[in-house]
């Protein structure tokens, strides 16, 4: 494994370093509008409470499947989208971050004024969606982004020299011949050359276009580059070229990367630390080798099983995961993964929605369902058209037809003619707990083999 470049810390102890990026309880929701007057009827909770840090010079990989929110996360970190809640803090010292966390631990409204003022100060200086003036410019110069679609990320009507030279022009760093020379130097650093200056994007291959994007991102010598699936659209041999290039650039310039991808092999290769996301939340995070050798979350395990490492002689047919990703507008209670988890327990957040979903997949009783009236997510009355259907449901919920964990999670169930009253044990969301140094996971299970209480 290559060495991580030394962090420029102003502290003595390595654990107390400054952070280039600190994501704190970040949430991004998108309103769902419906009807003639476009009333807001719900929120797509793309990112729903994510926290992690990126140090100078390190590569943090964010991995997950479609709908997990990683792209939205990347957009928020790079300042292209404003968070709905929480914040992205840029270049924040250890002291400021601890201070921030302790202030935020106290709920809004209960804080003394001095604390609020402190919060403001930190926000104005470091929070990406609040910074202005010099602080904002510094952030903007130091945080760049490379997108997945190399074709759509370059203006088809501009020549390469304008595209790559644009950041320099915007900040008036150079002009005329000097500008052209700097552009040539950038192109050479990414493996292109002077001969590519006066060409249009469509004249290049996918790999070359990505190199142009990288050159543009490097123009202002940033500290952090957000890489949003930079090689997903490329062939494997071209991907290898680009990954090698990215590593070289990081080594030479001390860059930090936020590497967003769905490809576990790539993230395993490139990242120092990994954050695994599922449905808007962090399922597990930790140092790469630790995380992949000792996964502590069933979802991480499932991802690993589905992408075998060829170099280690991957198995011929991996274990597979049932079900599909739930609707991000109605994420499951408790642990969001419980609807698909092969080792779910009774305290994982079973709720009424799970019953309804189960019914949908089992025709016969479903057609007779006439209404669901919920007290909350865990308690409801289901009304049927016939008594028989109600009885069948009660039977089913107490039989093998339903996962055992779900059965055990039922606190009470009673049938009154055509109505079934169900109550599950209510549970809170599952928090991230520390498993080993720097390794956190949001799962009630201790080691995926036995059950422990949530501490």
């Amino acid at each position, binding site marked *: 494994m290559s060495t991580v470049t030394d962090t420029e810390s102003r502290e003595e102890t390595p654990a107390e370093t400054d952070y280039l990026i600190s994501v704190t309880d970040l949430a991004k929701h998108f309103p769902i509008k419906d009807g003639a007057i476009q009333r807001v009827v719900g929120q797509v909770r793309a990112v729903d409470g994510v926290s992690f840090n990126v140090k100078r010079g390190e590569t943090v990989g964010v991995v997950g499947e479609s709908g997990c929110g990683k792209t939205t996360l990347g957009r928020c970190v790079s300042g292209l989208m404003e968070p709905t809640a929480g914040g992205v803090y840029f270049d924040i010292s250890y002291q400021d971050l601890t201070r921030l966390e302790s202030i935020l631990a106290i709920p809004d409204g209960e804080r003394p004024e001095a604390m609020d003022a402190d919060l403001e100060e930190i926000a104005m200086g470091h929070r990406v969606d609040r910074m202005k003036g010099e602080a904002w410019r510094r952030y903007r110069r130091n945080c760049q982004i490379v997108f997945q679609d190399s074709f759509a990320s370059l203006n088809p009507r501009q020549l390469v020299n304008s595209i790559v030279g644009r950041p320099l022009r915007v900040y008036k760093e150079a002009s005329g011949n000097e500008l052209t020379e700097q552009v040539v130097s950038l192109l050479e650093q990414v493996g292109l050359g002077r001969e590519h200056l006066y060409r249009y994007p469509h004249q290049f291959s996918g790999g070359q276009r990505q190199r142009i994007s990288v050159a543009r991102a490097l123009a202002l010598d940033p500290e952090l580059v957000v890489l949003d699936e930079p090689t997903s659209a490329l062939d494997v041999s071209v991907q290898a070229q680009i990954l090698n290039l990215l590593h070289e650039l990081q080594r030479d310039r001390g860059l930090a990367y936020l590497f967003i991808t769905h*490809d576990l*092999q790539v993230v395993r*290769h490139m990242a120092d630390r990994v954050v695994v996301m599922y449905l808007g939340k962090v399922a597990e995070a930790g140092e790469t080798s630790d995380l992949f050798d000792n996964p502590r979350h069933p979802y991480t395990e499932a991802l690993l099983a589905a992408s075998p490492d060829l170099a280690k002689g991957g198995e011929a047919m991996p274990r597979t995961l049932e079900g599909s990703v739930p609707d991000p507008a109605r994420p499951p209670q408790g642990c969001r993964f419980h609807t698909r988890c092969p080792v779910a327990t009774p305290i994982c957040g079973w709720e009424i929605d799970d019953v309804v979903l189960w019914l949908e997949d089992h025709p016969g009783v479903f057609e007779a369902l006439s209404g669901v009236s919920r007290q909350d997510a865990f308690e409801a009355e289901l009304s049927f058209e016939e008594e028989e259907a109600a009885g069948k449901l009660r039977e089913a919920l107490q039989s093998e037809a339903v996962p055992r964990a779900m059965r055990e999670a039922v606190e009470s169930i009673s049938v009154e003619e055509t109505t079934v009253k169900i109550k599950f044990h209510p549970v809170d969301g599952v928090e991230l707990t520390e498993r080993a140094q720097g390794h956190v996971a949001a799962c009630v299970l201790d080691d995926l083999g036995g059950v422990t209480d949530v501490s």
Partner: protein
Amino acid sequence: MTLTNTGPDTHEVRPPGAIASVVDLKVHFQSKRGVVHAVDGVSFDILDGETLGLVGETGCGKSVTARSFLRLVPMPPGIAVGGAIHFRRRRPCQHCGGDGCELCDGLGRLPEECSQCGGPGCEHCDGSGIDNVDLLSISESLMNEIRGDRIAMIFQDPGKALNPGLTIREQIAEVLYEHRSEEIMERAGFDPEASNVTGTLVRRRATQRDRRPERILMSVPPFRSRRARLTRATDEMVAEALTETQIANPLKVMRRHPHELSGGMKQRVMIAQALACNPDLLIADEPTTALDVTVQARILELVKSLQERHQAAVLYISHDLSVVSQVSDRVAVMYAGRIAEVGTREQIFSEPLHPYTQGLLAAIPSGSHERGRLTAIEGTVPELIDPPPSCRFVGRCPYEAEQCRSADPILASFEPGHQVACFIHSPEPDSSLDQPSFARKTK
């Protein structure tokens, strides 16, 4: 035993049990800058019941090769230059009508007897007694019969391959109407051969060849119930197809439109549609590329189990080597319009012979590679416009020698089941040059 890449003879000995054989396929494209040799002399066999993975990067010609099976390549700008695709088709077993019986080993399909000799064996069928046709030269009507019925194809993006205006039921029913209309009629309790008015009306309806007056007639009471019977029978068959691909609650899914389903579901629907007629060969063109990795794992599992059940052969095309390793029995590696190497899965992944295959495997990132040291194959894929005779991998190969620049290597056998087109392993037969030492060049 050498299979020539460039011979005009298209009736060589084919190994027994090959359901399809591509022989020296050449497909070129007219473009502004010249003629692009997209597929330039490709030969391989697909054995009965096996999954052959065809792997290669963008532009290697694998998609064009796959589409040639069903003549889906648009013919301008495409130019079908040469070669043949032999296909040994089956027909539904008349004994059981497709359900499976002793005679057909439970498959519901029997090989078609050779049209020339009727069974014993002759030159046309290479002694096997089984009929083969050249997919590139048969008539359009025969091709229509085969498409969807004997050879089915599933595509990369199910969102684009499914008609957004049709419900799932209509989508799958289309295939059934076209190829299994007799079975629909039988299930509904009608005699497919009946020639009376009712029988004709029913038959027309089942094959969707009824016209307006007939439709009006069918909506009127005595005939209306018959129409309902046909509809129910079709519904049943559609539900069966969907259940086979592990779609829970097929009756509900049937009534939906493609945009209401997730990517994985859509892909299952496409697979269900493809398998509805129990084809002999399933061509899968990157079917899981657009899907998440966990969904992909399930689809691969499904394809494998369905293949076992139907005993169909599968041509699985992908650029993703790890996917191919999970699913294939044998693998063919394509590069720049030609086959570089063919072998069993073990052979290709444990002892790759062609430098391109080696480079490809070494380029896959993993935890065990040192960062910054992934073996990236130098250079880029060559333009394929009027290529001169030379190995296409010239300029990128670490073992390149003089010979490689002046002649085309031939796909030749290295060990049983393992063929490679490279001068390292099969030097030109009567070359007077000293055999170059293929020492690895240092970069």
